[in-house]
């Protein structure tokens, strides 16, 4: 078959263009599923928490979980709301679940305190924005923080829709007095971001998170939701539970029984 120069260039052009178009189409359809309502996971372990708001509200003055956590992780107590550091704290129901609150809701109900912490999202926005890989999702779902790598840019704080992250504006060692420091767990340094880590250091050695252990009401249930036989899966199976801002697609792993 005889082929002239013009014909050859034409055919080569068509072939090249279709190759590129194919690649583009493929990547478009395959995509990086950024927002997926339910992320399918084949992980053997996925840690999650179920908080019973009613049990918790029965003891409004209790702060056992917060004290245990903050003491155990050397979290300094700072009164200034703009500088404070929180791993686990209480917030009004109306602020935690604005989408489940109406203006006619009784003030007492709306201002009922709910325990909040880092939601250990399945699709964590903080991880997506961290430029240095200082925060990432472990295979068991825990969103970890590596303070060695954190450069304090606070992108993660801007990305987190729950305000679960705090920045160390001051050297926490200057706020914690010598007696408050638990030697086994490190303190942070000025200029890094910190948050709840689901007590990864305890889970890894087979212990329950500090808040779960500290709660006398048994209001916090912790377990592996990847295991259909686990207590938390049984508790979740037949109940109507809430998750904070689940519509954002972050897929939070803290469930609330209201």
């Amino acid at each position, binding site marked *: 078959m005889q082929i002239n120069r013009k014909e050859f260039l034409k055919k080569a052009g068509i072939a090249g263009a279709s190759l590129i178009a194919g690649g583009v189409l493929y990547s478009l359809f395959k995509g990086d599923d950024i927002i997926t309502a339910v992320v399918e996971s084949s992980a053997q372990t996925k840690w999650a928490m179920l908080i019973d708001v009613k049990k918790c509200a029965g003891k409004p003055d209790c702060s056992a979980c917060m004290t245990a956590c903050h003491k155990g992780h050397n979290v300094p107590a700072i009164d200034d709301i703009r500088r404070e550091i929180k791993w686990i704290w209480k917030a009004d129901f109306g602020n935690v679940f604005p989408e489940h609150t109406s203006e006619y809701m009784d003030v007492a109900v709306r201002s009922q305190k709910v325990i909040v912490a880092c939601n250990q999202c399945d699709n964590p926005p903080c991880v997506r924005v961290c430029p240095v890989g200082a925060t990432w999702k472990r295979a068991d779902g825990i969103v970890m923080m*590596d*303070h060695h790598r954190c450069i304090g840019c606070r992108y993660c704080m801007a990305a987190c829709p729950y305000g679960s992250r705090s920045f160390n504006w001051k050297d926490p060692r200057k706020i914690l007095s*010598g*007696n408050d420091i638990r030697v086994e767990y490190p*303190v942070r340094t000025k200029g890094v971001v910190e948050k709840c880590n689901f007590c990864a250091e305890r889970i890894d050695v087979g212990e329950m998170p500090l808040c779960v252990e500290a709660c006398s009401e048994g209001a916090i249930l912790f377990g592996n939701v990847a295991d259909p036989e686990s207590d938390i899966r049984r508790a979740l199976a037949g109940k109507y539970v809430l998750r904070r801002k689940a519509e954002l697609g972050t897929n939070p792993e803290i469930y609330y029984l209201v």
Partner: protein
Amino acid sequence: MYDGTKIIPGILLFMIVLSFPVWYDRLNGSAVIPAPEVKTESKYCVMPKGYMRSNHMVLLDEWRDSVIRDGDRSKVFAGIIKYDKSLSNSCMKCHNNKKNFCDRCHERLSVNPTCWDCHNLPEEAAHAN
């Protein structure tokens, strides 16, 4: 050689000035290699002394990465003892005097590791009790 009487003493003087840090240290007695104080009942460290002396920072980095990044909190065997991969909870249980152990070499070599910005010293434990 032209002007040899000036050049040779000049070179000698230059060499003396150049080697100032060496002979000044010798004369002052400050050229002694620092001896970190090891006060421990345990006979077993995680690695031989020579390796630890030159590579402890590599080992600590590996421990850090395996514990935090990989979540591998398995223990390290040394002789008959199991140790956690932890600076505060293993190393500094034996080598509990930072001033006489860590700082002696670090100061001499002018290195400033930031470990203790966050990780706690056993002195603080004594303080807490």
